[in-house]
């Protein structure tokens, strides 16, 4: 067990190092000289040469990599020339908005998938099941950025039920006192009901848009697992003992169906991270994802690079935690595998 855990941690560490090399090299083989990008195409050759030396671009690539990574670990994530600030404080200021959106999207995806999967498998009515399967295909096949736009056209512009793409709060509403940076939580803690309602209102459409793909994915997984488990003999035994269908499902089938879903948590996180880049652009959500799309448009890749590296770190760590958690819950996973 300990040996397995240690080797898993080591391979995760290797993956992170590999990922940092991959992302660093990818952004350094870019055909244009970063110094030219920063100074603009009309800058003098002398100025470009000076800046090239200042950032250390003439050094060998491995030295550059080492400088970047050791700086990253120390908290120096680079400097955004187009925005005139260092990347870490930029990302730090924008991350709470992304985290809040991601949390609500996750809650929507999880609850939606759970309810729909139960609906599909509880009585096994073909029509309901077919409808639920169709919904999961829709969730996986719909481009999130397009769905967000359509929801804005219909529900915001058309019917006026939800606010337009103008960020986290109406311009007339002051943000709550900054504690965590998550507006709904801060407003709740400080009892600022006006800000709470408005922040929640602004979250509905972006959260549904971002949560749609993970919902489709989780729904497919949960439905299949629930179907598998509900065919198991032990469930028949439970039912024959006179336990109601609902209790049998809630107490015996669901916990068994959950474990394979837990292992998908890493994938869901990836969907949320990548999706935030797309969805924040549609809704003008002032988060880290929007910072990335802005960086791409301005050709200022320091923010993009930091975001990519950060996502890789978070992604690997979550996958590692998921592995450890599922080994802790299910003894079958702890046993050494024959193949692999």
């Amino acid at each position, binding site marked *: 067990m300990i040996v397995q855990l240690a080797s898993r941690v080591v*391979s995760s560490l*290797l*993956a*992170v*190092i*590999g*990922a940092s*090399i*991959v*992302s660093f*090299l*990818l*952004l*350094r*083989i*870019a*055909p244009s000289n970063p110094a030219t990008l920063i100074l603009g195409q009309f800058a003098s050759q002398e100025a470009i040469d000076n800046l090239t030396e200042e950032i250390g671009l003439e050094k060998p690539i491995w030295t550059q990599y080492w400088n970047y990574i050791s700086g990253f670990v120390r908290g120096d994530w680079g400097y955004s020339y187009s925005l005139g600030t260092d990347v870490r404080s930029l990302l730090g200021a924008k991350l709470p908005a992304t985290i809040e959106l991601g949390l609500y999207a996750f809650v929507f995806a999880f609850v939606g998938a759970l309810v729909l999967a139960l609906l599909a498998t509880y009585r096994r009515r073909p029509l309901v099941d077919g409808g639920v399967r169709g919904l999961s*295909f*829709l969730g*996986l*096949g*719909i*481009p999130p*950025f*397009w*769905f967000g*736009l*359509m929801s*804005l*056209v219909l529900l915001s*512009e058309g019917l006026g039920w939800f606010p*337009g*793409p103008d960020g986290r709060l109406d311009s007339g509403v002051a943000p709550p006192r900054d504690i965590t940076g998550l507006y709904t939580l801060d407003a709740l803690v400080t009892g600022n009901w006006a800000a709470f309602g408005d922040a929640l209102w602004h979250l509905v459409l972006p959260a549904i848009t971002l949560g749609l793909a993970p919902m489709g994915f989780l729904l497919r997984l949960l439905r299949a697992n629930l179907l598998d488990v509900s065919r198991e003999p032990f469930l028949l035994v439970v039912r024959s003992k006179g336990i109601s269908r609902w209790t049998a499902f809630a107490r015996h089938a669901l916990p068994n169906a959950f474990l394979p879903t837990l292992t998908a948590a890493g994938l869901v*996180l*990836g*969907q949320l*991270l*990548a*999706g935030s*880049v*797309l969805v924040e*652009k*549609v809704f003008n959500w002032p988060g880290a994802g929007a910072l*990335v*799309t802005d960086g*791409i*448009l301005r050709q200022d*890749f320091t923010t*993009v690079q930091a*975001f*990519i590296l950060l*996502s*890789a770190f978070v*992604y*690997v760590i979550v996958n590692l935690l998921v592995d450890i958690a599922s080994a802790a819950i299910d003894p079958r996973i702890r046993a050494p595998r024959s*193949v*692999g």
Partner: protein
Amino acid sequence: MGRVATAGRVDRGRRAASTAGRALAFVARDPALAFASAIVVVLVGLAVVGRLAWQYDSLTVDVENALEPPSWDHPMGTDGNGRDVFARFNEGAGISLLAGAVVVGLGAIVGGLIGVVAGIGRRLTDSAWMRVLDAILAFPPLILAMAVTVGLGVGVRSAVLGIALTTVPYYARLLRTDILRIRALPHVEAAVALGATRTRIVQRHILPHASSAMLIQSAAVFGYAILTLAALGFVGLGAQIPEPEWGSMITDGLQYALTGQWWIAVFPGLGLLAAVTAANVFADRARDLLDPRGEIAVARET
């Protein structure tokens, strides 16, 4: 229909026709599969015939007729520069379908080769390749595709390469696991005992048994590739705006959608939804058919 047309031909023709007829009947029994097949036929038709036969060009600017709503003359309206959205939609269908096919091909070949090398190689080779794949898998797929496109320079070609790279580890791991499983089967052992060469064993005794998993994977990858290409186009890393790619068409329509000109962004989105859903339905049905565990279900249904 195929059966009637070829009746009276040689035996081989008749057998082929009845296979086609059986395939048609199989598709017709399953509404979702029939729908997905219809989508593919329509999209391929639009991409090939529609592009050649339609009266408008996808890039010709006609400012006098800008932002016209859908009409008989412009079935999907015109965009902010008066370009015909239908012509752009058709060309976008071609770009997306082609990109999907290229990603599937590249991913399957490169990933498949790595899978074979890791699966039949020594332990050290195997774990070295697995570490390399781990580094690629450490990124959320879209984020890695973004990084590649930034590195290679924006455009459809870099986007396709980036997306293909993200699919490589999935193909490689799938094939490797399959090979490790098949390698332990008795018929491979028998072939080894008879002195067959390594190449022959891989070609004749291992790969044919591994192909169904690759097929299922490819259908899913096709849909993923189309969606990701559009996402990259949407954030400005894939196709650039006048280019009629569905994702960049949606970006272009973003500014008009909220002022009432919905048609510029709606149609490419519908095209994406249709294409990706069709690919997902095919992947799902292929899984039901080819996955040994699913065989029982199919046998029960028929």
